[in-house]
């Protein structure tokens, strides 16, 4: 199956429709599907969260997502992978990110799905601003953590 039929990566301004991801990832040769959905939580680091706002580097964000998906296909025996990230305002309980991975075997599906969300958080140029009771904050920027590029290098080392 050509790679473009096995990978679907998208960035959207609309609510994430999980069913679309699982419909894409479904495959008669797949006995297992693992999914991950990341949602806005009502608290973070002791702050009461009102909502999150996401922005991305258009073009590069999709490209980095596709690289992760291609790496997943190269490393695990996976049928299909769908990854979607939402931009703009994401309220409490709403999904900001969703991943679905189908596979002949459940272990590969779990590992690949877990790897994909870990990598997405590390290297895809997307940012979230937290609006909490009392202020707002760009998550990640408030500390002197290692940059995305350094993390990419460490991953590949």
């Amino acid at each position, binding site marked *: 199956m050509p790679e473009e039929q096995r990978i679907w990566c998208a960035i959207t301004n609309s609510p994430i429709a999980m069913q679309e991801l699982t419909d894409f990832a479904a495959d008669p040769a797949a006995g297992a599907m693992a999914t991950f959905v*990341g*949602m*806005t*939580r009502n608290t*973070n680091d002791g702050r009461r969260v009102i909502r999150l706002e*996401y*922005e*991305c*580097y258009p*073009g*590069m*964000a999709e*490209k980095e997502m596709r690289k992760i998906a291609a790496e997943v296909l190269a490393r695990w025996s996976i049928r299909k992978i769908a990854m979607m*990230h939402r931009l703009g305002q994401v309220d409490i309980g709403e999904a*900001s*990110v969703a991943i679905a991975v189908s596979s002949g075997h459940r272990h590969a599906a779990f590992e690949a799905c877990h790897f994909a*969300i870990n990598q*997405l*958080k*590390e*290297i*895809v*140029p*997307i*940012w*979230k*601003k937290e609006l909490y009771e009392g202020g707002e904050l*760009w*998550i*990640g*920027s408030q*500390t*002197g*953590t*290692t*940059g*995305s*590029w*350094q993390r*990419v*290098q460490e991953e590949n080392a």
Partner: protein
Amino acid sequence: MRITLRYFASVREKLKRSEEEREIPSGATVRTVWDILKREHPELSAMEKAMSFAVAQEYVDRDHPLQDNDELAVIPPVSGGCYA
């Protein structure tokens, strides 16, 4: 030579713009431009270690040489996905 600079998230807010064009000396690297930005906006130095860079939508290191018409993106720590 002339490049386009892209700013995102906290950097965009600090610099109050999302992109601009700049004339830079020939032979400049990513580091050259980053040093100029830090001189103009000393508050960027607080994010020194955390900053990444992309040219033509690919991560590059600070020694990467720039070329005419390059798009250089200043990338603060990414935080896509969820908190969890």
